[in-house]
């Protein structure tokens, strides 16, 4: 039905897709499995016409086609349901359903007919839905179902579901699987983009595994198991090898005891997380993005109020402190997405170099800045961390990603922190900048700092950490010493597999 052959896509030198061959048969549920950044979303965006491939050919129902835009894809019968739904919350279900279609009774809308069609579909799919309810009042699973049947009503033969279960509860997930079953029975093809092994095993017929932009293999689900898939997904070649002396952990710096954080809808996003980090060691927390990593880092730095549990930094309780107070306890925080979370794009490099310490001497006295001290500080950061910039007055938005990350790193480490919390510190960086970050973090560890490394990049966690844990769905696994790590086991746990008893 669909065949993609030799698809390649580069983003300014970074290969996202490397000669990918991929095919989907009629009536098949095909899983596209891979870690974050393995290229699966890029491939699907090429198929859906959001990106243009640099190389490769696309065959659809036997003939070669080109897809220039999502409209093209929809016209051909390829539909995509995004992770973030594209319904209009203040419209009713029926109003959303007719969106994007001509009304048979123009210039009037034919809401009654739409409602009737919906009634029929909801019976067929065994889903109770009120066509006149507002979409904002529906749960996530029903909204997704609405999006799916809307795509079908546009005449879709192939449905791409991009990480469809990431926002769903287990019950809603079950309902989605039921819907997918029914679709397959009607001869529709479904491409299920995911990083979850159990779901792949549960619902799909075949699976194609991607790793670092390449196809590892395509297998029938009945011929494989979760463990084999996990190995295919994470098996890899080590990129860097950095010499590191054995860790000499000393006093406990950070102690976290059963910390619980609930989202606005009362759903727990951190479920009783406990851990301990000592001076001179790196604790790595691996996990697929969106399993509570951000909340954990924010809770530890005071940016996210916690609902229960306790946090101590050097035996001082910091669970209820403000971000400013936590920073003053000697906590450096290197968040992911520094542009959004750790830098002020329209401020100069100098001004950025004092964020989080800007109220302190020597940078300010009586609330007034001392520009010469700030310049001197910025200059020393620029020199020591080799930040490539013409001068400190330049606005931060003109820095490259790697140099900005260096600036954040330099700034945070210049405060001589006791504890360093880094989240995806090398995401989006090139090889050189990445190596620099790794070396810097290891140096800090050797100096006796406690480091919490939270990363979606498993290689990174293994490369740097002395002890490793996996975070999944807001819970943290048992902590394993890095020299006893079983890669397959880690990959298995990251994808939601149960920990082996040992």
């Amino acid at each position, binding site marked *: 039905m669909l065949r993609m052959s030799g698809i390649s896509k580069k983003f300014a030198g970074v290969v996202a897709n490397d000669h990918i061959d991929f095919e989907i048969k009629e009536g098949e549920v095909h899983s596209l499995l891979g870690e974050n*950044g393995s290229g699966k979303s890029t491939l699907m965006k090429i198929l859906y016409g959001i990106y243009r491939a640099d190389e490769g050919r696309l065959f659809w129902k036997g003939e070669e086609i080109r897809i220039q835009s999502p409209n093209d894809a929809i016209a051909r019968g390829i539909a995509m349901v995004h992770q973030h739904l594209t319904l209009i919350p203040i419209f009713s279900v029926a109003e959303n359903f007719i969106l994007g279609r001509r009304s048979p009774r123009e210039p009037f809308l034919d809401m009654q007919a739409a409602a009737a069609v919906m009634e029929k579909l909801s019976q067929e799919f065994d889903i109770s839905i009120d066509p006149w309810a507002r979409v904002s009042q529906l749960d996530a699973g029903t909204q997704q179902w609405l999006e799916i049947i809307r795509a079908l009503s546009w005449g879709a033969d192939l449905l791409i579901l991009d990480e469809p279960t990431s926002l769903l509860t287990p019950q809603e997930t079950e309902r989605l699987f039921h819907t997918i079953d029914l679709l397959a029975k009607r001869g529709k093809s479904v491409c299920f983009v995911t990083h979850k092994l159990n779901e792949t095993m549960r619902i799909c017929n075949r699976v194609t595994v991607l790793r670092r932009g390449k196809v590892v293999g395509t297998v029938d689900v009945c011929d494989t198991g979760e463990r084999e898939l996990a190995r295919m997904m994470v098996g890899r070649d080590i990129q860097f090898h950095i010499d590191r002396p054995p860790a000499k952990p000393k006093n406990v710096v950070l102690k976290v005891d059963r910390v619980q954080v609930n989202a606005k809808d009362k759903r727990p996003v951190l479920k009783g997380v406990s851990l301990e980090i000592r001076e001179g060691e790196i604790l790595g927390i691996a996990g697929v993005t969106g399993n509570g990593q951000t909340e954990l880092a924010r809770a530890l730095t005071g940016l996210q109020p916690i609902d229960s549990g306790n946090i101590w930094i050097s035996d001082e309780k910091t669970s209820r402190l*403000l*971000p400013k107070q936590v920073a003053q306890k000697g906590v450096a925080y290197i968040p992911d997405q520094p542009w959004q979370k750790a830098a002020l794009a329209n401020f100069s490099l100098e001004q950025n170099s004092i*964020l989080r310490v800007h109220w302190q001497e020597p940078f300010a006295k009586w609330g007034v800045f001392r520009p010469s001290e700030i310049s001197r500080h910025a200059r020393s950061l620029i020199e020591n961390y080799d930040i490539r910039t013409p001068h400190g007055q330049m606005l931060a938005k003109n820095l490259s990603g790697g140099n900005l990350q260096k600036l954040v790193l330099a700034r945070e480490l210049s405060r001589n922190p006791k504890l360093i919390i880094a989240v995806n510190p090398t995401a*989006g960086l090139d090889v050189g900048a990445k190596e620099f970050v790794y070396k810097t973090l290891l140096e800090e560890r050797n100096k006796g700092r406690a480091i919490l490394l939270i990363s979606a990049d498993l290689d990174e966690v293994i490369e740097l950490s002395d002890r490793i844990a996996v975070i999944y769905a807001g819970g943290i696994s048992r902590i394993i010493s890095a020299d006893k790590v079983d890669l397959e086991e880690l990959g298995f746990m990251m994808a939601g597999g149960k920990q082996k008893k040992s």
Partner: protein
Amino acid sequence: MSKEIGDDDIVEASNPPLKKWTSYIVDSLVVRDIKELGSGLLALIVALLVMAVMISAAKINPLEAYLALVKGSLGSLNGISETLVRATPLIFIGLGIAIAFRGGMWNIGGDGQLYLGALGATIVGVYLPPMPPVIHITIELLSGFIFGALWAAIPAYLKMRRGTNEIVVTIMLNYIAEFLISYLVAGPMKDNTRLIPVPESRQIAASAVLPIFIPHTQIHAGFLIAIAAAFVVWLIIERTVLGYEIKAGGENAEAARYGGINVLRMGFVAMVISGGLAGIAGMSEVAGVHYYLMDGITPGYGFLAIAVALFAGLNPLGVVLSALFFGALMVGAESMQSAVGVPVATIYLLEGLVIIFVLARRVLSRHRRSG
């Protein structure tokens, strides 16, 4: 959520060669300002051209009209005096709006805060016993600031505690302030000593009057205070921790919180300072122009000041120039009407066009950056 390799993540390898620090500082200051100035002027020129078309449509020679405008506002001592007098409240409110906008707070309540500041000044000017002018004017100034600041504190507090939209609340408070003053000058504060009482307060004491410092004009000391205020605001924004935190909160709330800044509180502070400055505008109108409190003491200075602040690129020193320009427009429009018959209202059109073009440029440049 899956992480995508996108264009934003790609690292540029090239970096400009290192030049001398000083030359770059000069470059970045001067060049950037000329560019800013240039695009502001461009917006103005386009606005003037559009308006010229409209004036010609009314069968009036636009050149003549513009000549009358310039002559009226700058062509005589009287015109210049009038221009400076009109610019004074615009500077105060414009500075306040610049601070608020920089802090991410949309203060549309300049008029209401001006009314309240005028009330505060009048109370001090009318009801306090005689005292040396320096002390009297200082108290009057503080009173104007505090009244304006408290009026702005209402929307600011609601925003901080309840997340209420400050735009709506500030606009609504404009009406409340206006009617409050109407009531006061027609009732409790009405000057009943006159032969034919009109809805006006009593005159403020002589010691509370801002002196006229250029003889034979109307230019009062309020203008000097406005210039001083511009420097103070510039210092706050550029050189203090307070200004840094206000700007950081307005620029990127997430990163500001990360930086240990209480973003909600900074929004509150920015709004209160903003209202205080608008309050001083009211004080300066009472103490420098009218000498008593009355209905309609502001002909829409609060809204016009938004244009002033935007046209100045929210730069405090730019606000002074921008306010002078819009003051000249207000004065010139009146003489344009009497000379060639173009209604004063067209000047509102010009103001509107300038704002649209200034904003369009901003939106476009932002779009280009992200796209």
